[in-house]
C-alpha cells in the first residue's frame, strides 16, 4: 500500500508534477502493483547474492587515448535554449 502523502513525496523525488486528479489514481495503481510485488517477500532469500549483471564480465577497460569529441555548437543544436556556449536555465530559486 502506498498513500497520498507517499505519492507526493516520491513525485517530488522524481521531479514529476502530478495534477490533483492524478494523485489518488497513482496511489491506487501503484498499490495494486506493489501488492503483487510484495509476494517476493515470502521467499527465503537469506544468503542469495543479488544479481546486477547477468553475464560474467569484469573490469572492462579501454585504452586511455584522447579522441575528438563533438564541437560545442553541434551539441547545443538540439537545446531548447542555448546561450554563450552553454545551456541556459532559469534560476534555481531559493
Amino acid at each position, binding site marked *: 500500500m502506498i498513500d497520498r502523502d507517499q505519492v507526493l*513525496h516520491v513525485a517530488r523525488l522524481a521531479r514529476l*508534477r502530478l495534477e490533483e486528479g492524478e494523485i489518488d489514481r497513482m496511489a491506487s495503481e501503484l498499490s495494486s502493483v506493489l501488492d503483487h510485488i510484495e509476494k517476493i517477500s515470502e521467499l527465503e532469500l537469506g544468503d542469495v547474492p543479488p544479481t546486477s549483471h547477468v553475464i560474467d564480465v569484469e573490469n572492462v577497460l579501454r585504452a586511455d587515448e584522447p579522441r575528438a569529441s563533438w564541437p560545442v555548437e553541434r551539441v547545443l543544436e538540439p537545446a531548447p535554449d542555448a546561450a554563450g556556449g552553454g545551456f541556459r536555465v532559469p534560476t*534555481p530559486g531559493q
Partner: protein
Amino acid sequence: MSSDLLKISAAEAAEGVRAGTVDAGELFALYRDRIKDLDDRVGAFLWQADEAGTSDPGPLGGVPIAVKDLFCTEGIPTTAGSRILEGHRPLYTAKAVRDLNAAGAPMLGKTNMDEFAMGSSNENSGFGPVRNPWDPERVPGGSSGGSAAAVAAGLAPWAIGTDTGGSIRQPASLCGIVGLKPTYGAVSRYGMVAFASSLDQCGPLTRTVTDAALLLRHLAGRDECDSTSLGLPEEVTLPSRTSLEGLRFGVPRELGSDAQGVEPGVGEVFDRTLERIRELGGEVIDVGLPHAPHGIAAYYVIAPAEASSNLARYDGVRYGLRSGNGTLLELYERTRAEGFGAEVKRRIMLGTFALSAGYYEAYYGRAQRVRTKIADDFRSAFGACDFVVTPTSPTVAFELGARTDDPLAMYMADYCTVPMSLAGIPAVSIPAGLAEPSGGGGPPRGLPVGFQIAGPAFSEILMLDAAFALEQAIGFDTTRAFL
C-alpha cells in the same frame, strides 16, 4: 512481379539482388509506396525514408529495414514514442543501425512503439496506437508493436526492435512472425534510448527464422562504445536443420500450457507444437523453474528502478521538450509532467519509490536476489535439456483498450518472456498456429500463437537451427495478414 517480390523472404530477396534477378531499387520503391498507401490502416510508422541512400547492396542485398524509433538516427527524428522527444534529431546513429546499413540494409522508416519501450500493447505510444494486421480492433503487442505490425502487414521485409521483458517476442507472437531476443551483450546497445540497461537488448523481427539469423549475423559484435557488449563466440551460420534428433526440450511446469492465465486456445497450439517436436525426433521432458512465477514481481522492481534513473536525463535542458518559466525546479517538473505519458510516469514513480530511503532492500535488494534464483533455475534446467519451451504470450492479441485501465493485467502479458530477460538468455518466438481468443470474437480463422524457445547464454546458433526445423514442419503462412 511485385506481389512475388513481396512474398519472398528478406534473405531470398537479398539472394535475388546478388544474383541479379531482383532490383534493389525496385524493392525499396515497392515498400516505400506500400507504406505511403497502406500504413494509415496500421499506424506502424512514425517516419519513412524517401530513398535508400547508399547503392552498395552488400551481404544484405539492399533489402530495406524498418527500425524501432528507440534507435538514434543522425539527423532523423527519434522520439522513443514519447512527446518529450517530439522532433528530436540525434547527433549520431545507433551501432545496430549503422552496422545493418553498412551490410547493405538501408532504413525504410522508424516504427511506432510504446513510450520508452514501456508497454505490451503499443497503446502507450505518444503518437497513437498501432493496429494488429490480423484484426484492426486488436493490439499488435508491444513495445516493438510498430516493427511487428509492419512486417506482418507486408510493409517491411524485416525489422529490428528491442526487448527488455518481452518487447520483441510478445509482439512477434501476437502478429504471427518471428522475434528474437539475443543473449544480453550479444548486440551493442550504443545509441539505443535506454530503458532498463541491465535488460535491454536489440534483436530482429522477421517472417522467417533464416531472416532473423541473417540479421543477427550482422548485428552481433563487441563494441567499445558499449562496455557490456561481448558479441557472439562465432559467426552466425544460417539454419539448415531438418530433424530435432538428439535435442531435448524442457517444458517448465510453471510456464506450460496450464500455467496461470494461458488461454485454452494458446495451450492447444502449444501442446500440438510439442507433438511436432516429438515427430521431428526431439525429446520433450518436464523441467522446473520454481522461481519463474516471481519473474513479473522482480522485473517490475528492477526495470522501473533502472528506468527512473535513465529517464532523469529528460529535464528540458539539453534537448527535447521544455515547459515552464518559473524556477529551475518548476521547469524540470512541468517539462516531465507534460512530456511523459501515464505509464512512463507510473514506472518512474514505482522505480523511485523502490529505490527510496527505507525501501531499497525490501524491494530492489530482494528483486535482485530473486533474479539470481531465476537465473539459477535456468542453469539447473539446462543441465537436463537443451532448450526451455513455453507459449510466448499467455493470450492471443487482445482488443484495443481491454487492459489500459489495469496496469497489472497488462504486465501479465510478459509472464512467459520476463524470466528469460532476467536471466539474460536468448529466446526466439516463432508462429506456431492460430487460436480463438478465450472470450470469443476475432477473425474466423483465429489469431496467431507464438511458441518460445529459450537456450543457454550464447546458444543462438543451435537455438535458431532448432527453431528452423520446427518452422519448416509447422509451415505457418506469414503472408496471411498482408494488406
